[in-house]
């Protein structure tokens, strides 16, 4: 019994040491490398900023704009979430939708980011071949409560890899918004959706 407990301890400790030493510098030209760099950068910034820890949302929004948004493709995200309604929107409306949807997502995810404390991110092995242009990077956020699966879907563009969809706890963002967008549009048209998003964003900004 004593031996069993001892060997258990040793194996757990070695697991711990192995996972710590198996890190090499990530390559931003690979999808998983890019995600690792962004995640590490954002987590360090959040954890080292007492203002963000206190819940200073404008500061988090600023961080998201600078460190996450440049690596996303919001046009593609919005287009896919709009589905067949995308082609019914004028280029002007499309641009407005992209801005408002982006702001809604930034607002909501900033709230989640400000709650980051001692979470760590675990990366699942990448299952893709080097020639793929549409790739999923699977991660698990491990915190004090249940682990949260968080996956990123990236596409290879001329400027490098860009995130266009994320999966939180099993639900893809685009998929989760598709029906809501369709419903809003069939109730009040594309302009109605834009207006709804504008009002929601104003409300969220007002709440601070």
């Amino acid at each position, binding site marked *: 019994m004593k031996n069993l407990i001892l060997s258990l301890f040793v194996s*757990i400790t070695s697991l711990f040491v192995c996972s710590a030493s198996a890190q090499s510098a990530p390559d931003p030209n690979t999808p998983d490398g890019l995600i690792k760099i962004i995640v590490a950068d954002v987590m360090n910034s959040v954890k080292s900023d007492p203002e963000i820890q206190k819940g200073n949302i404008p500061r988090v929004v600023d961080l998201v704009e600078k460190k996450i948004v440049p690596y996303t493709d919001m046009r593609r995200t919005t287009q*896919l979430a709009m589905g067949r309604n995308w082609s019914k929107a004028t280029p002007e409306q499309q641009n407005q939708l992209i801005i408002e949807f982006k702001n809604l997502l930034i607002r*909501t995810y900033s709230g989640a980011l400000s709650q980051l404390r001692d979470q760590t991110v*675990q990366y699942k092995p990448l299952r893709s071949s080097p020639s793929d242009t549409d790739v999923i990077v699977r991660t698990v956020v491990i915190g004090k409560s*249940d682990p949260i699966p968080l996956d990123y*879907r990236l596409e290879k563009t001329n400027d490098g890899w860009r995130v266009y969809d994320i999966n939180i706890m*099993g*639900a893809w963002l685009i998929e989760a918004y598709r029906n809501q967008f*369709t419903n809003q549009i069939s109730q009040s048209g594309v302009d109605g959706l834009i207006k709804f998003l504008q009002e929601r964003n104003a409300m969220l900004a007002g709440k601070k």
Partner: protein
Amino acid sequence: MSKLKRALLLFVSVSLIGCASIPAGSERSPDDPWESFNRSVFSFNEGLDDYLLKPITRGYRFILPKPAQQGIDNFFGNYRDIYTSANNLLQGNLSMAFSDLMRVVVNTIFGLGGFIDMATPGGLEKHKADFGQTFGVWGIPSGPYVVLPFFGPSNVRDTFGTAVDLETDYLFRLLPDVALRNSLTALRIVNARNNYYEAGDLLEGAALDKYTFTRDAYIQRRQYQIDQAKEGKEPPLPVYENQYQ
């Protein structure tokens, strides 16, 4: 007790009779043929949360220091790991079932009966499995989407799954001391609500229509969990109808 139950049942049925109307012009989802009924249960649950569960949880967060909340969550998590292990076994995931069992052993012995989670930092990843998921892995189809009073989003298969979960739950059904059993159940409900206290507020802001958002996320999430539980299988990617131009 039975009087209270009957009163509660009456209250639920009265509030459900007035079926909530589906917003005009919204498109019906093929997964949700009972939308009108579901929407009324959904608003019943929302009311219950607003007026009862959320205020209680707020008090719980105010009274109890963070480490105590964490200890309680770890305790129930450790207890649920036993059932997760059993479900992983039923799903044929032997390695996961074993790792979950190891978690229980490690946390019960070294984590003061489960109040400290020693297994996660030690590299034994926490999983979650329930009977609804097990039925799904066995190939039983989900059936239409259902919103259950008190329990929230579900489907026909998961309703049976939840019934088996509850029926086999030692702390909920079988613990001989009734007073202790009821207090533990109450604490467990508040702990579960506490776990998504902040996420619930986020959802409020993120959703255009909370009902549709919750439903679509639930349906996806359950399928994802089942796909993931089938060993070696990657959850399939959603295919979007309009390709990027």
